[in-house]
């Protein structure tokens, strides 16, 4: 079974985000960029399936300009077999990403697609579900456990009330949650090996997908700052403040 893993290049999760002076976007100049943490978990899961002998090949795909090849190489260093970059400098919505990925699914015919549940930049949490709908496939989102059982996959999902387990006919789409696994660190030899793994570049324009979004960003502003508070000396003062000043207890 082939496993396809879409990965996104995003601002590193440790970086403090700043809105640009024009209030049009977040300032990304000279910021550290990384593979989206949920995508890293997706790559790890796919590589484990391969190590167990369940998966035969792990293909990673990233949509973006040339710089996202860096994140594809990261995924290859973690153990993926080959990469595909779909080249575009358009800032795409999840719908356009899902449409491009649907074309890749058509071409590659994976048995399983594992995506992150959410990009930590757009915080959309959409692409996997959209891809599933476009391909007419079942989905197991927010996965904390994935088990292949013959021609089906059992997915345990982190939901608001606890955990839910669903069984999906393969091929299926899975999106990862934080508890699915703890991604490994790439070893130096594997980082070197990754440089020689195949990476195909395709132009987004060649897929026949309209890339324009119908959603315009009118402005991007910093959030309201919270007023700095005070330090209280002890529990008695804390309880007093909550009762008489804040009046919340």
């Amino acid at each position, binding site marked *: 079974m082939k496993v396809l893993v879409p990965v996104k290049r995003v*601002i590193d*999760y440790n970086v*403090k*985000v700043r809105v640009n002076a024009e209030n049009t976007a*977040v300032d990304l100049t000279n910021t550290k960029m990384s593979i989206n943490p949920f995508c890293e978990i997706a790559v790890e899961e796919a590589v484990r399936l391969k190590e167990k002998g369940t998966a035969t090949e792990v293909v990673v795909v990233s949509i973006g300009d040339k710089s996202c090849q860096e994140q594809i190489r990261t995924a290859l260093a973690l153990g993926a077999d080959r990469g595909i970059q779909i080249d575009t400098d358009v800032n795409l919505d*999840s*719908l356009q990403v*899902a449409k491009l990925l649907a074309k890749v699914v058509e071409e590659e015919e994976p048995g399983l697609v594992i995506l992150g549940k959410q990009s*930590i*930049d757009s*915080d*959309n*949490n*959409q*692409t996997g*579900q*959209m891809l599933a*709908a476009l391909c007419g496939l*079942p989905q197991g*989102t*927010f996965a904390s456990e994935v088990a292949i059982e013959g021609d089906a996959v*059992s997915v345990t*999902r*982190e*939901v*608001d*009330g*606890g*955990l839910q*387990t*669903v*069984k999906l*006919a393969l091929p*299926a789409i899975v999106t990862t949650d*934080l*508890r699915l696994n703890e991604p490994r660190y790439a070893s130096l030899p594997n980082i070197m090996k990754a440089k020689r793994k195949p990476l195909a570049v395709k132009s987004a324009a060649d897929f026949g997908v309209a890339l324009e979004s*119908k*959603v*315009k*960003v*009118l*402005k*991007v502003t*910093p*959030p309201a700052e*919270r007023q700095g*508070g*005070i*330090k*209280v000396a*002890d*529990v*008695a003062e*804390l*309880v007093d*403040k*909550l009762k008489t000043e*804040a009046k*919340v*207890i």
Partner: protein
Amino acid sequence: MAILVYAEHDNAHLKSETSKMINAAGQMGGDIHVLVAGENCQAIAEDAAKIAGVQKVIVADAAAYKDQLAENIADLVLEVGEGYSHILAAATTTGKNFMPRVAALLDVAQISDIIAVESGDTFVRPIYAGNAIATVQSEDNVKVITVRASAFDASAEQDAAPVEASGSVIESAKSEFVSQELTESERPELTAADVIISGGRGMQNGDNFALLNGIADKLGAAIGASRAAVDAGFVPNDMQVGQTGKIVAPQLYIAVGISGAIQHLAGMKDSKVIVAINKDEEAPIFQVADYGLVGDLFEVLPELESSL
């Protein structure tokens, strides 16, 4: 123009998200209809009919909808949602699961997690874990939106609007419910609680979370946690507050042994009053706390419990 709101419920109770979404829908302009899909959910539909602003409730009562499987619900919403200008669901794990399918099948974008409505086509949503706020305008003919309920007040009540049944039963052959393990608790739900007390890695283990119980009892609080506490197995996943967990905005949020990483702040910094208890006076949580108490939680918590 009419707006279809997908009701949030658990087959037993209508959840407060529904009333808050209806408030948001009211700011978009147009008639508001509510879709209740589930099993044995007639009583829930009748409750939804009493939320001010609702003109009609459509109830789809079938076993196929009981577990809110995305494949079934998305197709139902597509069928019932035909002709509506806006389709809204809560940004809960239910709404997040099926709504993007609806958007994709309608060939429109989804606008996730809105926190304010500027007009029928312009919405405000946080991005980058709430470190930036985007105002977006949609030209799509149907607006598919998930609503961050904590950002909206509940609607008032009204005399019941009519409830009608949808006979539709859609069941995907590709996906099936196997089991669920729901966390049982007598406490209020995190997303509906007025007071929340959350523990982090500083709690050291799951047993120590019992130190929060007495305080939660006295304050009628829900108990939450940081990702680190969930990852370490101290408490279940449904207690995680943050960018990728639950987003809460109670009257009072008490963070205990939580450092205040941006991903945690993203889930609670809109709380009205924030209290931080941490032994490290440099912990970033103090930057957002109205009242900070530097101290060892193992000393502070018992004292706090007895002084309430």
